[in-house]
């Protein structure tokens, strides 16, 4: 075995890590399906294509059809797209807010920290559903974007807390003191001295927020507070339960969306642990 160069060390361990390999493969698989899917099906998600109503999966309708004769596969593909969008926008926004608040609170300390801490705790405890109800009543037409922004704006507290604690421990290190002595501005210290030292942590925060946003979106969609003008996996489950797919045994209607969410979110979590092992030498399995 040749010894890897230091620069490629991370990549070397990344490629050797089974958790990372499995997790990323599954996520990529679904991502590819999202992009290739529309080519594979020529049905629109809500078009009534099958006059016979509900039919099990066949060569014509890969995932079968709903009670109204809609193609489940077409809905599934469009739902996947919505799922990834919510994950990227909602998870991304949640991470950015968490980073901003966490860095500010952790680096500034004192009264700023107290105030931000209080804000974090309040957002953490308030049932976000109540706020969503008001928004839902105002915006009778809601898209995926609105939903993602809402999720991002309410899901950041734990990330802010974790990042704050990390910043706190980095703040008193020698290299940060040195930067402060040299007259560097606080913002610059945060982004050039502190942030690079917890980059792995931030990446992992994003992954967890990504997965969390997908699960929250599915919950909201399921109780009818999700997007009104789009297809989503949660909405598919909502429709299936609403129209008695359980009693009628139309399993192909509600099984695929759940499997997809479970696989994507589970793969993200596994990727996260894999990354942790890559970044943290103590956890590597030798």
């Amino acid at each position, binding site marked *: 075995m040749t010894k890897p160069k230091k620069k490629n060390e991370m990549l070397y361990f990344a490629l050797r890590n089974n958790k990372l390999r499995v997790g990323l493969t599954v996520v990529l698989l679904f991502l590819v399906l999202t992009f290739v899917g529309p080519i594979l099906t020529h049905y629109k998600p809500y078009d009534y294509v099958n006059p016979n109503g509900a039919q099990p999966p066949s060569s014509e309708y890969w995932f079968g059809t709903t009670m109204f004769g809609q193609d489940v596969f077409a809905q599934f593909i469009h739902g996947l797209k919505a799922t990834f969008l919510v994950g990227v926008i909602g998870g991304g926004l949640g991470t950015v807010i968490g980073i901003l608040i966490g860095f500010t609170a952790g680096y500034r300390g004192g009264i700023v920290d107290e105030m931000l801490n209080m804000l974090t705790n309040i957002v953490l405890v308030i049932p976000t559903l109540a706020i969503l109800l008001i928004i839902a009543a105002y915006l009778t037409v809601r898209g995926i974007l609105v939903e993602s922004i809402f999720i991002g704006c309410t899901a950041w507290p734990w990330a802010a807390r974790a990042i704050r604690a990390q910043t706190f421990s980095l703040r008193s290190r020698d290299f940060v003191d040195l930067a402060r002595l040299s007259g560097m501005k606080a913002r610059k210290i945060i982004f050039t001295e502190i942030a690079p030292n917890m980059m792995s942590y931030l990446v992992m925060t994003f992954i967890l927020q990504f997965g969390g946003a997908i699960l929250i979106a599915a919950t909201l969609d399921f109780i009818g507070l999700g997007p009104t003008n789009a297809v989503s996996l949660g909405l598919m489950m909502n429709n299936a339960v609403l129209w008695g797919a359980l009693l009628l045994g139309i399993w192909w209607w509600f099984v695929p969306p759940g499997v997809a969410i479970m696989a994507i979110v589970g793969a993200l979590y596994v990727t996260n642990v894999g990354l942790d092992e890559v970044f943290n030498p103590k*956890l590597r399995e030798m």
Partner: protein
Amino acid sequence: MRRYFGRKLLIYILTFFLAVSIDWLIPRFMPGDPVQNMLSRAALHAEAIEVMHGYYTRAFGLDVPIWRQYLNFWIALFHGDLGTSVYMFPQPVAAIIKRAVPYDIFLLLPAILLSWWAGNKFGAFAARTKWLDNIISPLGYILTATPYMWLGILLSWVFGIVLGVFPVAGAYSFALRPHLSWTFIGSVLKHWFLPFASLFLVMFGGWAIGMRNMIIYELEADYSHYLEALGAPRRLIRKYAFRNAVLPQLTGLALQLGVIVAGALVTEVVFSYPGIGYLILAAIQNQDYFLIQGCFLFIIIGVLLANFAIDIAYVIVDPRTRTGMLGEGA
């Protein structure tokens, strides 16, 4: 310790104030008029509607200035008066909620406590036993990534409809009236099992994974290595690791409460289990804003109480908070 509780209490009071204010806004910010909404369903004469509209506006207290309405809301709140339901008129909201709450407690409390306990135990076992880890870890990741309602849907389909061993709707058999007998208790337990199981399983996965990873972290910590170097038995080291790992798990429980409440909500919807979650859905569908308001008020109080209980548990488990040596992140 006084400082610790004082600070927590301040946050809870502020949160309660803010949450109740948001709650108060719900019906007032709605584009539709809830009274008009209710009357339009009754299909009355135009004149009758006018009179009724005036009557109900007064009955719901919507005819006074907005600041007065806000004040009245707080006053009524402390009298335990949550208004009158529009959808189940003329029942008071408080009475409707009072009927639903026992089901929520009966469902949620065992599910949260048992899954937390079992998840921690199994997670800790998994961290030290290779073969168990190979089962628990993948299972845990799959379970914690499963949306609550989907597991509910699957369980209800497989056990309720395909196998037909469990009922799929309600809190007890429709053929029975609530009374104290073994048949009734059996029926209640049978209806309770599937919603409980789906909540338990999803939460169990999260706790088990969290505990396993925590223990592995703790076993790599300096104190573990030090103990090991001193020649302490493995068992003792693991005991210390477990006690240290329980603390973040407890914090995690507080962080997860919001998600758990939302999960319980959709689980109740799937199983038509007559708790608060089921009520909220009915209230949303019928645009009964007073009922929504009442349900959320109850959720807010429940979540705050649970947070407070966790704070107390934290003080009991972590001696550092008792002696005032507040650790970071407390």
